[in-house]
């Protein structure tokens, strides 16, 4: 079983349980084929939904408390939301380790369009694995970055439906919307 270390161990501002969070992260990690230890740091003060990979090896993740929250019940942990957040981060790690993403700029150098395009490719795959979803939400985000047009929608379909794109292909699909 994947070892997950969650900080903080207990929460003051939200009703989260570090053990439950650890289980959800481990479950997603195993589904994606990870066996190594994962460290997850949560900023419980922030209800926003940001998340990032602070280290690829060893795996260290950082998230806003809001990125794991059940939006229907503020301050409560949301399993589906957590799976989506963690799944996207872990898939990005897998992508970068695959050799298909060697030319990818560092995470903080990616612009909103690039991020949105990669995200679509991640969430499409997660949905097929039964981990994430919200296709229309991702389409809306993608359209905000790539335009409300047929070209953008076709690009979205391609990113969502493909199983193993390389960074160059993602860049090309996203870039085609820019030129269109």
């Amino acid at each position, binding site marked *: 079983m994947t070892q997950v270390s969650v900080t903080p161990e207990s929460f003051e501002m939200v009703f989260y349980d570090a053990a439950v969070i650890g289980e959800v992260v481990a479950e997603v990690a195993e589904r994606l084929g990870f066996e190594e230890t994962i460290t997850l740091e949560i900023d419980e003060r922030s*209800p926003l939904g940001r998340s990032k990979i602070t280290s690829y090896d060893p795996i260290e993740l950082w998230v806003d408390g809001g990125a794991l929250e059940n939006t229907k*019940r503020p301050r409560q942990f949301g399993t589906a939301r957590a799976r989506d957040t963690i799944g996207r981060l872990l898939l990005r790690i897998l992508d970068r380790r695959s050799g298909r993403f060697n030319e990818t700029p560092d995470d903080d150098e990616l612009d909103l369009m690039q991020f949105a395009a990669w995200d679509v490719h991640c969430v499409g795959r997660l949905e097929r694995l039964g981990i994430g979803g919200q296709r*229309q939400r991702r389409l*809306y985000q993608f359209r905000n970055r790539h335009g*409300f047009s047929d070209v953008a929608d076709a690009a979205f379909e391609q990113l969502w439906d493909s199983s193993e794109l390389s960074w160059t292909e993602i860049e090309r699909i996203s870039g085609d919307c820019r030129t269109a």
Partner: protein
Amino acid sequence: MRKIFPAEELARDGRFIRQTNEQRMGDPRGARIAGGNSGDRLAKLTPELANGPDRARALMHGIFVGEIQALEGAGRTCWDFEVGEDVPLELKLDMARQCWDEARHCEISVALAEHMGTELGEYAENALLYEAACNPDPVLRLTGVNRALEGLAIDVFNTMKEFGNMAGDPVLEFCEDWMLADEVTHVKMGSDWLRRLTENDKERLDKALEFQKVVDRLFSFNGFRGEEDDSPIQLTRRFRELAGFSDDEIDEIADMSREARVEASS
């Protein structure tokens, strides 16, 4: 059916989860507002923000439940008061008209939720808007709801319309444009009835304006709605003027927001 139907009993299907005011105000991270929490320094809502589209989605869901409550509130005003004894027939006719408008706004919001990828009930609902619509004095009710809350709706819809425009989202911009037109009409109804019903009753006028201020203040956490460049929701002078607000009144709301902002940052 009773007169004055309590907010706690508003009927919803199983998708909707109600957040009480205690829960909302008791969130140590700040109460949720404008698609974010008041504890954060929320930037102006634009598509350029990394979380812009998601905040717009959350805000749109807030608008959707607000539309349901506005519909319910206007409906209750048709029922809670007697023609002649409490209110003139024309006031109720206005409220019935508002019911239809708010029902259409619900329909528009449902379509927008689908467009933005939001499930109905995806976010918690609080009943603050409907609570203002429970005031037993029709003048106070209309002032609190139609002038304070629908006034806020003008600001929110205009912000969302601009968001749609900046993002190049023709659906959002189109919808907000139409809803904005209706809301200006509703605020004007509030302004007109306040003037007509308090023409010879200074005391009631003062009470109503005070209630409006209380409601306005409730929605001024952190001064999130204001005239500063980075106010998440922009105060909309032009449409408020159309809706019967005087310059002084608009200045007062702007000041209130500024004070709330200073208070929050100190």
